[in-house]
């Protein structure tokens, strides 16, 4: 699956519009993921996952920052996320199925806060982008 020039433009536009809210969106994405897909909580036994958790917010910021980094280096996501890819392969080993769940929740957050931004075409591009990020992060698993 390859990101077209249009996809890249759409993704950059989304992150441009989201701007400073990205960190907040990251936190909300995680909150939604933990609520809708409780099995994802198994990766965070060391976290307080209660409502308003500072740890979840902080981790959401990290996740958002990685997505922003990928969007800003969309011509070479693998390069941009290489260290994160190593981390996920060697240490975190999050089962690949979970990246789709995170992606779904991120799309829901964008839809909730910016319905006008998420046109069907932009939705398609963003979905592809999130898939690409997941693929990069699991690329070195085996």
């Amino acid at each position: 699956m390859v990101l077209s020039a249009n996809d890249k433009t759409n993704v950059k536009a989304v992150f441009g519009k989201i701007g400073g809210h990205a960190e907040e969106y990251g936190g909300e994405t995680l909150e939604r993921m933990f609520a809708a897909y409780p099995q994802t909580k198994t990766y965070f036994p060391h976290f307080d996952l209660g409502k308003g958790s500072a740890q979840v917010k902080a981790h959401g910021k990290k996740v958002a920052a990685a997505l922003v980094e990928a969007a800003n280096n969309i011509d070479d996501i693998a390069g941009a996320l290489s260290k994160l890819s190593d981390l996920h392969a060697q240490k975190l080993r999050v089962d690949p199925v979970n990246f789709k769940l995170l992606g779904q929740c991120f799309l829901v957050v964008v839809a909730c806060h910016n319905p006008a931004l998420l046109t069907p075409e932009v939705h398609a591009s963003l979905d592809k982008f999130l898939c690409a990020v997941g693929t990069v992060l699991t690329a070195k698993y085996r």
Partner: protein
Amino acid sequence: MVHWSAEEKQLIASIWGKVNVEECGAEALARLLIVYPWTQRFFSNFGNLSSPTAIIGNPKVRAHGKKVLTSFGEAVKNLDNIKGTYSKLSELHCEKLHVDPENFRLLGDILVIVLASHFGRDFTPACQSAWQKLVSVVAHALARKYH
């Protein structure tokens, strides 16, 4: 039988009560065909699906989207017997329509995103959770009679 908490039932009903089935159904199906273009394989007789604009404006897509979401309403009305509600439809999708059940999961996820875009902040995490569960149960019920 799937267990629904009182809160889940309330969250599902309260959203469903405000859904414009025709609009949401059309939008969900159109998005499915746009975001996951391989799903167009089931609709070769729908005419022009050559671009997002064509898909969104296609009257067959709109009509079929409405039909699909109307059927979804049956699940909402029969939360305690979704399996039974979709038994015949499951057979149909297997024997006549030959639809890979993965497509039900794709459509379910898209429906959740459409609801999120319509309801904004009202589509809380708890709300999303109830609806993700519902679309998952519906997908499972539609796949249940496959052989």
